[in-house]
């Protein structure tokens, strides 16, 4: 009897905390499977997959916007890595003037409230016909994701053992061969982590797409927003769950991708 007594306050606090963390998520899951739920019933009256069929039926809006979202995220990852791998290598290994200032420059998009900037990006893009195009949305997402890409890639290159590169050079490999056969493979897990970061950032991005993507580009977050405001809680909950799965999955496995030696060098 006495053994569990000291656990009582702890259990209450942890239980309350768990309720705060999981309660809102539970409510979302309930809505995703509720076919009938109205006041004053505390729980749904009927559960089912009716709305799932509606969301996943071929050529539905949701499938269309999911495909759009994934394409945008993949293009964004491609653009970010193409920019960040050379930049990260230079920042980690080569002597650069104003290195600290360059590192900080990539943080700028996170250091200013971005909504007002998106408004003006949309205005500038309008002049070039980029509004409402996939390209426009990818460009906006790329700038926003670049800080993760550059900082994590830099850390990944900095964590590669220099002696291994020197050993390759000593047995006659050229600088370029060394980079592609030694440095890049060793930095790959960190680069992979930055790619996942960028992918998720792009998949979840709302504000920039809201201004630049309209009216032709509908990503999953935009669809969810519209469904929620229209009161289609089931559709909103199901699309929210689709967005939730990769986010939570990454949270649970982030340490496997982002090893401590790379993590310690992020931003340095």
């Amino acid at each position, binding site marked *: 009897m006495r053994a569990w007594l000291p656990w009582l306050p702890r259990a209450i606090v*942890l239980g309350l905390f768990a309720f705060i963390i999981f309660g809102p998520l539970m409510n979302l899951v309930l809505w995703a499977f509720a076919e009938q739920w109205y006041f004053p019933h505390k729980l749904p009256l009927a559960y089912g997959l009716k709305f799932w069929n509606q969301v996943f039926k071929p050529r539905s809006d949701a499938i269309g916007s999911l495909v759009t979202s994934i394409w945008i995220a993949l293009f964004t990852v491609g653009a970010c890595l193409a920019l960040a791998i050379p930049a990260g290598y230079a920042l980690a290994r080569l002597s650069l003037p104003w290195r600290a200032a360059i590192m900080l420059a990539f943080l700028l998009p996170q250091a200013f409230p971005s909504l007002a900037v998106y408004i003006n990006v949309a205005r500038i893009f309008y002049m070039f016909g980029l509004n409402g195009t996939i390209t426009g949305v990818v460009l906006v997402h790329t700038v926003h994701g*670049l800080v993760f890409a550059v900082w994590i890639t830099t850390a990944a290159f900095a964590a590669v053992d220099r002696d291994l590169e020197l050993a390759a050079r000593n047995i006659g490999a050229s600088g370029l061969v060394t980079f592609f056969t030694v440095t890049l493979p060793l930095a790959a897990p960190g680069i992979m982590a930055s790619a996942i970061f960028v992918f998720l950032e792009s998949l979840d991005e709302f504000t920039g797409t809201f201004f630049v993507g309209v009216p032709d580009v509908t990503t999953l977050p935009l669809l969810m927003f519209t469904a*929620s405001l229209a009161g289609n809680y089931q559709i909103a909950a199901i699309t929210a769950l689709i967005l939730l799965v990769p986010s939570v999955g990454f949270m649970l496995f982030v340490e496997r991708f982002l090893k401590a030696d790379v993590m310690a060098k992020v931003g340095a």
Partner: protein
Amino acid sequence: MGAGPAIGHRHLGLFLVAPALATVLILFVYPLCYSLVTAFVAKEGGFTFGNFLRAFEFYSVDIAFTLVIIGISTVLIGLCSVAIGGYLTLGENPRAVAILKWLYRWPLFIPFIVAAQCMRTFLAKNGLMNNTFVSLGLVDPINTISLLDWRGIIITFVWKQLPFVALLVAGAMASLDRSTIESARNLGAGRLRILVEIVVPQVQQTLMVGLILSFVTMMSVLSVPIMVSGGSPTMITVDMAFRINSYGDYGTANALGFISYALTGFAAWIYLKRGVSQGGKP
């Protein structure tokens, strides 16, 4: 890359960094400057303060509302992240520490828009929160209140941003030198005192950086105020979107944007000033 003169390296380095840097300059810095300038340009052209006068005339309540909501959220995030980090560092029960460690990170990568949708249902008058309280007999069904107003926005912000700051703070606390903590403990200092007097001052920089990044993030969120509160007063992000979408009024929207930069700058300035008053280490 061993051989070769240093000057060649320097050019190679700049050459490799240039595309990424140019992307930020063209797609972020240029629109940022554009917004700063447009805030002072009248619709017919020419310099004016009219946009700011209009912004304050229509939206001064919303500006105050935004500052209060984000201010309270930031303070709550700071306090809770120190509490979580502190328990993870100083907690004596390994099982409770493990449970907390597993619990607190869940919302880390959940997008704001999903958090908003969760809260929109959870905090409603007939949402899961009130229903649970009623079922447990804590509240009468007639006395349930909807939290879908400014309180809902704060709860959503804290729920979403706390894991990020707590992760940074807990990481910084974990890498502290344990010997000072142990010696204080040997001298009989309580855990709360160790946390406040020894641990927090050493992780202050990390805490402040996390809080400022959170402040900026919350200042840019459009979905949460629309989906969670919806009513008036609202946050200035909603006003900016409204000026653009309803009137095409870039002047006033950019004036509000300028105000959002200024509020963020003010927060950063408080942080830097504190750093200076504490011996030049921000």
